[in-house]
């Protein structure tokens, strides 16, 4: 079981900055995120897009902001449970919380800070009638272990970077790779598009465009798919495959958090504006996931909310300790790794 002081659900910018503010108070943090990498939307949706309203940064790329935050919190040694979704929460007898992920990883902390943005990112599933019946029986939305596709006939659907990149990767692993996309054009890094072209010319990727998978066939396991080809030559193709991997991107869903007994309004968690606590004492909600009168979904507001929330969390954990906020310029930053950053001392010396 993972034990920490503040368990943060969501490793977007707000969740990451919480580690820093908690660290200044000598509180340890652990983060859970459904995505395989930290950064939330900034990494997943728009890493190469500029942001202009981070105070002190006239312009910063979303991906760089995440890198900077990771650097800023490094000394506070946060733990991460990535690629797992927080599923259930339980209040234990000692007043602390037990949060379990979809993969069964258990986390225990006196404070839970939900910094979940719009929710956890779930795969967008194509509209095929019997798709659900074949999930884990030949249909998968993520590629976790490429080895399971060795010497199999694989069909990938989609037109973005992940569809291209996995087609390239699996061309060397699977016995046959087919890529199906609704258009002839692909949206991806130029390098990936060119590689797929080269592999197609070599006969290592079977490209079917413009086309769509419309039906799945098989009894207890996927056996074949029906492909509807459009454009100049309309036709239906029945293709024998072992594995079908639709890669149509991710969309955020509030998910299991909605069933944790928290007050929800407009797909967001209601909090007070004193310390961003929810209706359950000890559970806070910060950043895009919360709502209160006048709420703005801005990264800079998430930073502010995280800061006030940490002060309140400290009071909850140490109700009898006296504490006053100290400027980092005065107190410096002492990491849990033994590092110490502080402003250079002034020198007192006579000028002769």
């Amino acid at each position, binding site marked *: 079981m993972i034990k920490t002081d503040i368990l943060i659900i969501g490793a977007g910018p707000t969740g990451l900055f919480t580690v820093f503010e908690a660290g200044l108070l000598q509180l340890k943090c652990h983060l859970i995120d459904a995505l395989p990498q930290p950064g939330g*939307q900034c990494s997943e*949706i*728009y890493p190469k*897009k500029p942001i202009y309203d981070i105070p002190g940064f006239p312009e910063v790329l979303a991906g760089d902001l995440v890198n900077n935050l990771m650097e800023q919190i490094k000394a506070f040694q946060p733990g991460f449970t990535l690629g797992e979704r927080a599923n259930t929460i339980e209040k234990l007898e000692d007043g602390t919380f037990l949060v379990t992920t979809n993969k069964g990883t258990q986390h225990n902390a006196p404070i839970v800070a939900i910094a979940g943005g*719009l*929710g956890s990112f779930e795969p*967008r599933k*194509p*509209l095929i009638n019997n798709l659900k019946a074949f999930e884990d029986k030949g249909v998968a939305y993520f590629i976790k272990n490429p080895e399971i596709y060795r010497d199999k006939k694989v069909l990938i659907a*989609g*037109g*973005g970077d992940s569809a291209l990149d996995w087609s390239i990767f699996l061309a060397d692993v699977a016995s046959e790779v087919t890529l199906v*996309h*609704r*258009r002839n*054009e692909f*949206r991806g890094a130029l390098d990936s598009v060119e590689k797929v072209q080269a592999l197609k010319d070599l006969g290592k990727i079977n490209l079917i465009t413009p086309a769509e998978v419309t039906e799945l066939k098989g009894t207890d396991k996927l056996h074949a798919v029906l492909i509807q080809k459009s454009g100049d030559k309309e036709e239906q193709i029945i293709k024998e495959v072992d594995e079908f991997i639709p890669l*149509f*991107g991710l*969309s*955020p869903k*509030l998910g299991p958090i909605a069933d944790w007994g928290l007050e929800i309004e*407009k*797909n*967001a968690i209601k909090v007070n504006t004193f310390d961003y606590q929810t209706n359950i004492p000890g559970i806070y909600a910060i950043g895009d996931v919360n709502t209160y009168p006048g709420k703005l979904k801005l990264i800079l507001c998430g930073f502010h909310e995280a800061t006030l929330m940490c002060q309140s969390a400290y009071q909850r954990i140490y109700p009898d300790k006296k504490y006053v906020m100290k400027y980092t310029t005065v107190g410096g930053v002492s990491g849990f790794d033994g590092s110490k950053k502080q402003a250079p001392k002034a020198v007192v010396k006579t000028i002769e």
Partner: protein
Amino acid sequence: MSDIKIKITDRDGVLHEIDAPTDMNMNLMEIVRSYELAPEGTIGICGGMAMCASCQCYVVSDHQLPEMSDDEDAMLAEAFHVKDNSRLGCQIQMTEDLEGLEVELAPES
């Protein structure tokens, strides 16, 4: 003030006739959000970067719309429920030319 009247059919099939300002640098997705015609968190997820398709709509009237950017075109190529008249609301700026625009919001996906 320069408002235009537009008609938006929401995801439940209810028609709304609303005034849309043309002097506030707003796009159709933002108009829908400002009138709360779709629940928060189900529209405009990427904030208007043509990167999520949550604001997909079908343009019913025959207005001359701004040309599709490569980003919008590519996003619609990966979205679901796409029809010939599909557009992303976030890419349609409110201008006086769009007086009388009629759109339907595409289903959530």
